């Protein structure tokens, strides 16, 4: 069962982070699609929470150097 999770980060300061974060998330097992919207700082992830939890997503983004938090919309 995949679900869509929306994360937000205020820290994206250069669009070069977009592919970095997308690829880091995409490399996690259970993540089907990850899209980073630079201008609004929104990160949309389609993932299977059983394989990749929301915490794991936050951790993967943190690994690329940015803090993000889940958001209801």
């Amino acid at each position, binding site marked *: 069962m995949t679900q869509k999770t929306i994360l*937000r980060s*205020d*820290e*994206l*300061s*250069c*669009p*070069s982070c977009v*592919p*970095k974060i997308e*690829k*880091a998330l*995409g*490399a996690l097992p259970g993540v089907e699609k990850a899209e980073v*919207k*630079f*201008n*609004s*700082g*929104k990160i949309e992830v389609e993932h299977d929470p059983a394989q990749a939890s929301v915490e794991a997503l936050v951790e993967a983004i*943190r*690994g*690329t*150097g*940015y*803090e993000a938090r889940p*958001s*209801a*919309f």
Partner: protein
Amino acid sequence: MEGMISNIRSALAHPASRRLWLTIGSGAMILAGLIARYGFGQIEVWRVLMIAAALFAGWDIAIRAWRALRVKAFSIELLVTVAAVGALIIGEVWEAAAVTFLFIFGGWLEARTMGQTRGALKALLDAAPATATVLREGEPVEVPAHMVQLGESVLVKAGQRIPVDGEVTEGSAAVSEAAITGEPMPAEKAPGSHVHAGTIAENGLLRIRATGVGADTTLARIIHRVEEAQEEKAPAQRMIERFAQWYTPSIIGLAVVAFAVTQDIRLALTLLVVGCPGALVISTSVSIVAGIGRAARSGILIKGGQHLESAGRIDTLALDKTGTLTEGKPRLATVIALDGMGEDELLRLAATAEAGSDHPLGRPIVEAGRKQGPLPTPESLDERAGMGISARIEGRDVAAGNRRLMDKLGIALGTENEAGLGRLLKAGQTPILVAADGKLIGLLGMSDTAREGAKEAIVRLRDIGISRVVMLTGDQQGAAQAIAREVGIDEVHAGLMPEDKLDLIRKMKADGAHVAMVGDGINDAPALAAADTSIAMGAAGSDVAIETADIALLKDDLGKIPEAMAISRATLGNMRQNLVIALVTVAGLLGGVFTGHIHMAGGMLVHQLSVLIVIANGMRLLRVPNAAAVGGNDSRAVAARQAVAAARS
């Protein structure tokens, strides 16, 4: 001791605080090194401290470069790592320390300031409360706001934010809608009123039946639209992104070629440092995010960079009258019964016919008719767009509408009634002629009042350079002129059918004007679509308006139009300034590197400074002044606050 270690650990786990600590750490080592060398002549101490500083800050950069490389992402961190390692190898320890320090320090500052640029939207996001108090089996229970079920009763106390869209079922309160509409004056809410998630109950206690929760609230839709608008790329941004894709690889190629030709490793490493066109790639984004965010804070939704651009160029503004320049709540001002007809009977027949129409002019007639008692149901109804309505009521053929309808039905007015009609028109009223069985039985005069602040808004529009302000209305000349005089518009086109409005807009455009059209109703839809920029008013109540207009004003306030134009122009100008700053930086850096004026540390410094300047310039847009300060708005807000204070005590 253990506590301290875990404190340090958690501080370092968060990217923002880790960057700060790395900056402080490597900065302190660099400072100590400089003191050792220039204060005490300790060159060896200086060298060790510089290497330590470079490793301390560089370690984090290298790890991030490696992580990116592992998922096959090319990163700026990789360029900086290669440059810093290269500098250490050739013994340029100062350059290595300075480059890594500046990269980390700049990254920390940029992340913070970019967060502020996005801050206007953050205020909207924060407006949505996380939890709601609902009544379940008579007991108040606290649940996450998006878990409230539709139809459940939500309790909101004084000072709390309303967590859902809904209808008030019990209680009353002054509700501040500032977060959504930008309106500082709280609105009085009582049973039957609609309230939006994100607004604040300033006093009282409300019980609300939830009609929309979570992503299905007006607030969420607004946030969604603002974000979509911010993501929509202006043409300039697309061009820059193509340039950036090509820029970094070619700089790397250039570094390799430069080294092969000149054997100058310093030159090659410096090129790597300036290889990210940082200021350029964010130059337009920063302006657009800040401009659209600033507008959203005032309850103005601008639907993307492209609309910012066209709104910034507008020189002609066309406005619909009813519901745009006026309150859109006409009153029945004059009733003239003719031909032995009683006023009551005239109103009863007219109201019965109008009850079959949803035209705003009909509503007060229907209300007046209902006061006489229940209205009969007409046997048949025929609404004629732009003219009125005809109906068969109790065996009589009744028609209510404008002059055109009477002409069409072949009903003559006669000189006396012509004079009566003339008097109504002269008084600025919109006449509705009522006929029964082919004979005129009465004249009704409707009047509508101009919106508060309309006159000031028109003055401001002219002040900011909208040279031509035009009224387009389906209403008749007399009524249109009366309102036009009141608000200070001198060009009036009255008696228009929807397609006439469309033709006029097309003609203005053909004459070279950049036209914005402000309207509300369905009859404005073709003209709105034809204009360069379409502006819808009162969009908080209508999702259609939010979806279709280029600029949606969440509140019925004409003062927001000059504000929207001012923000658009400021944003366009800001974008151009940022582009110039960024292009000059790129040219200056490359020129400086090749003429030997800029080395690694200097290149990194200029690069980071240009990024910060571009962000700071964009942030100026958040301070575009509020145009709501025209006219009596301030005193109204003060009076409202006093009323709220009085209600509290």
